[in-house]
């Protein structure tokens, strides 16, 4: 069997950019399945099955999510805390995406958990007729053992589940709760620690 893998070696990349996926086809598939699993089970913390070297302001899981989903048809917005030439070059090189300074025109947005909701107030949430035309927000955190927890319920959740990303700007909790009120419009969130991901789709009800 002879599959095309479009694999890039470090020689192809040169010295300036970190390598992306070892095997772009299979790594992207396994990362996508992890994201699909997370989005189908809100609040469940799932191990990211692949480590990839990433710039310091973008942890390995957050980088994997973008490498799996972004390409030349998508636009990424980076928050003030995550925006730097290393991250921008890395994403452009590996995905072919465009980067934008306009948070109201992006498919993916990247935020650090320490940042406040003012930065993401203008992300597209879709329209009543096309609620899918919304941004997916990736929030980089350190772990999922925060003292503060939200209790989630709704589609994908058998009874309830808990959401406890850390560190998280305290104002983001209110933003997440508000986000549910726009349903079917809204933002889908993927929290990414260096080793795990956890999703909060717009459909989840949240009790803080």
């Amino acid at each position, binding site marked *: 069997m002879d*599959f095309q893998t479009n694999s890039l070696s470090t020689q192809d990349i040169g010295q300036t950019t970190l390598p992306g996926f070892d095997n772009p086809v299979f790594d992207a598939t396994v990362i996508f399945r992890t994201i699909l699993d997370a*989005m189908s089970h809100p609040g469940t913390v799932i191990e990211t099955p692949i480590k990839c070297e990433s710039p310091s302001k973008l942890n390995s899981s957050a980088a994997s999510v973008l490498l799996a989903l972004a*390409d030349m048809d998508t636009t990424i917005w980076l928050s003030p805390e995550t925006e730097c030439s290393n991250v921008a070059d890395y994403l452009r090189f590996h995905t072919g995406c465009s980067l934008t300074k306009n948070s109201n025109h992006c498919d993916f947005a990247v935020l650090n958990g320490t940042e406040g909701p003012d930065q993401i107030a203008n992300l597209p949430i879709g329209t*009543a007729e096309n609620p899918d035309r919304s941004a*997916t927000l990736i929030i980089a955190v350190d772990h999922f053992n925060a003292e503060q927890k939200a209790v989630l319920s709704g*589609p994908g959740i*058998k009874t309830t589940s808990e959401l406890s990303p850390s560190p998280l700007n305290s104002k983001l909790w209110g933003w997440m709760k508000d986000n549910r009120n726009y349903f079917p419009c809204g933002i889908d969130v993927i929290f990414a620690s260096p080793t795990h991901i956890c999703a909060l789709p717009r459909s989840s009800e949240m009790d803080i």
Partner: protein
Amino acid sequence: MSQSTTASSYNYAYLDEQTKRMIRRALLKAVAIPGYQVPFAGREMPMPYGWGTGGVQVTATVIGPSDTLKVIDQGSDDTTNAVSIRQFFEKTADIDTTEKTKDATVIQTRHRIPEETLTEGQILVYQVPIPEPLRFLEPRETETRKMHALEEYGLMHVKLYEDISRHGHIATTYAYPVKVNGRYVMDPSPTPKFDNPKMDNCAALQLFGAGREKRIYAIPPYTKVQSLDFEDHPFEIQSWDQDCALCGSTDSFLDEVILDDKGNRMFVCSDSDYCQSRQDGSMPSSVEHTLSQASQMQSVNSEASK
């Protein structure tokens, strides 16, 4: 670049990576907005539309080498359609296939949901010919989008009620409309309404792909799926006077089989794996348990219809 360029080469699971990414982004939106139809830029597949290209594209997008795939058509693993799709993925995605519902991680289906209760971690992919439940009421896509946006589902209820005034009961037996998570009215694809209750609060992830109309929609696990009905005419599933002639099942969906030209016929399970497992005596006890619950529900329903 170590890219293979031989004439016989193709990408893993046939679809190119850019198409997969586009479908993957659509699938994630579909899961986040249960029952909403996400448009996607479908690709031509090496098979005609009637063969379930929408389902094939979804399967090609989610599947990886560690998956075990089952393909059913009208409940059977052995029809030409099911065999072709299974062989297509054996060849292009180098995966294991199975006929056992419980051994499959991904099940692609046309027109049935397996009788055996689906479990956490399984993905059921439906081939959908017409994704828009409001299409027969309103041919214009711009209008049906507005109706979904405004939750304007009154006409759908009127249609079902016309059934009642004409037939004394709701005559719709296939593609019976459902409401997902109390919000979107959704076409469950041309499955018999017998299968609708299996969609409700199902542990598996349900994904729907319509190839010709290029729409993807989803039901996450543990999501409320209600069949539309009326207080005085509650939703009922089909029931049969006969048991399965092969395995004796009293509560599975039965197909009528003509035996000869003298009009002799028998009824057998539409789900061939389920029927065979029962004949082999290998049905797990948990399934028997679930089925006895289902049969209680069914007997209540059949009494109600008398």
